[in-house]
């Protein structure tokens, strides 16, 4: 990556002698949204706090535009970033004043503060709450205020630590879509921490996988999910077929998706023309020898050629090229019965209900 905004080099954090985080190298490009995923306890929040210089690493350094951040430069660095945490952590004051907090801390003039606060109240749809006391807000409203507070600063880097995990599903979904829009509109550079793969796919242009304090893989979502670097990443990720497509319509409650010229159906809702990811777990794909008519209610059938077989204990992971890679999981005996080999033509089928849609 040329001219990354932020670099983390040789970062090591220890607690009680044990290494709890080790990141040899991680870069965030200007205007990029990097999603950091991992299970609970993987060290994601610790990484974020280290990136915010709120946690001193035992080893390693943080570089902003190539310049290492030194101890004396901490405050100056923190004025280039903005942090959004899982809890909104608003002050006992009005929504307006909460949005203004960061701006006032930075010493911006009054009229500029007012202008930016009004802009962001509107962009987040909370103008009507400006005079309300923060403690009377709902979870979603409070988190919108917290987002507004951070965005208003126009930080070089926005750091978000699972900002929506404490919210109910519909509120979370609405906020995710709004955040996706805002990040795109503002070209804001951001690092987004989550344990939810869907969120990572929705927001991240690149994904970094953190497991047990170790950075295991960094790459584009398709890359990480279809070619996980090791079995632990694969196990965490669980979804190995991610197909980029576009919605062509909706019929009978089923969304029609065009995938590189092939067609598939998925249960869900999305407007025509929308770019989506269609995600499949390997165990949801059934393989049939080519020429055989699949006896199942599965509406989706893709013809392809086997490119790779990877044994996995009593199972075999089969990669099929249908114009795009599709990964299926079959038992060893099934693989033997069907005489699955690289180069063999097969039909991969899956139910519309097994296809998981994510808005891109």
């Amino acid at each position, binding site marked *: 990556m040329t001219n990354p905004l932020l670099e983390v080099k040789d970062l090591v954090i220890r607690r009680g002698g044990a290494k709890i985080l080790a990141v040899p190298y991680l870069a965030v490009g200007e205007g990029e949204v990097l999603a950091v995923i991992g299970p609970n306890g993987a060290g994601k929040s610790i990484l974020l*706090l280290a990136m*915010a210089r*709120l946690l001193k690493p035992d080893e390693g350094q943080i570089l902003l535009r190539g310049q290492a951040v030194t101890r004396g430069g901490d*405050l100056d660095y*923190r*004025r280039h*970033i*903005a*942090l959004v*945490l899982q*809890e909104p*952590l608003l*002050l*006992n004051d009005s929504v307006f004043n909460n949005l203004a*907090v*960061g701006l006032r*801390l*930075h010493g911006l003039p009054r009229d500029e503060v007012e202008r930016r606060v009004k802009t962001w109240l509107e962009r987040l749809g909370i103008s009507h709450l400006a005079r309300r006391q923060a403690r009377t807000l709902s979870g979603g409203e409070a988190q919108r205020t917290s987002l507004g*507070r*951070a965005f208003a*600063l126009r930080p070089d880097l926005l*750091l978000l630590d699972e900002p929506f995990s404490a919210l109910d599903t519909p509120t979370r979904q609405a906020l995710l879509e709004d955040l996706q829009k805002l990040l795109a509109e503002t070209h804001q550079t951001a690092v987004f921490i989550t344990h939810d793969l869907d969120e990572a796919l929705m927001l991240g242009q690149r994904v970094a996988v953190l497991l047990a304090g170790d950075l295991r893989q960094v790459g584009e979502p398709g890359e990480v999910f279809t070619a996980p670097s090791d079995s632990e990443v694969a196990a965490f990720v669980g979804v190995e077929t991610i197909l980029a497509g576009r919605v062509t319509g909706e019929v009978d409650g089923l969304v029609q998706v065009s995938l590189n010229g092939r067609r598939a159906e998925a249960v869900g809702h999305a407007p025509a023309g929308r770019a989506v990811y269609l995600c499949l777990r390997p165990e949801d794909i059934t393989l049939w020898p080519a020429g055989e008519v699949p006896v199942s209610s599965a509406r989706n059938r893709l013809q392809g050629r086997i490119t790779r077989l990877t044994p996995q204990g009593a199972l075999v992971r089969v990669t099929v090229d249908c114009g795009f890679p599709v990964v299926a999981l079959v038992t060893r005996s099934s693989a033997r019965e069907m005489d699955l080999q690289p180069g063999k033509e097969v039909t991969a089928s899956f139910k519309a209900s097994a296809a998981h849609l994510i808005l891109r």
Partner: protein
Amino acid sequence: MDIIWQGLLKAIQLLFSGDPEVMQITLLSLEVSGTATLLSLLIGLPVGSLLALGKFRSRGFWLSLVNTGMALPPVVVGLAVSLFLWRSGPLGDLQLMYTPSAIIIAQTIIAAPVVTGLTSAALQQLNPRLRLQLLGLGASRWQMVLLLWKEARLPLLAALMAGFGSVISEVGASMMVGGNLRGQTRVLTTAIVLETGMGEFATAIALSVLLLALAFLVNLALTWIQQRE
């Protein structure tokens, strides 16, 4: 029964007539205890904040010390201050013994641990992640502390009131280092002791009513502010 009734009647008379001596005693009490409370705030706010927000190994020890200090017997404080201010004591040359300043010193020592301990508790009650959040928005350490004080303004106000309450009503230290000198170091509490001892119940009751009224008014102000929020 008659004593009480007579006493109450004379007390009402004294209060409404605006007796100059009663007024002087009341004003001196306010001045002395008010000053002591302010000084204890100047000590207690920063020290309490340091104990709440700082990270150092002996923190637990100092917190325990402060909490113990909250229960310091005023007479013990009176004794300690007397030892220092006595003519032959280390600070005898300052000639502060039996002056209002001596009472202020003693009352500050009584109120400071109260304000410190309650300030520390008030700040510790705030969400610890709030500090991270404020720093993560570009606050300097000092800006963060100011915002935390603002956030904890109600319990901090309560700490201040508790400090005042602990000194406006104490008598031991005031008596020992003040000497209860008429027109000079006679405050409400020491005056009540004196008048009761002389059997002047009317005066004693009048002074008690004033003392209670002061305490009540201060609490009323605090409650009003709290309810407004």
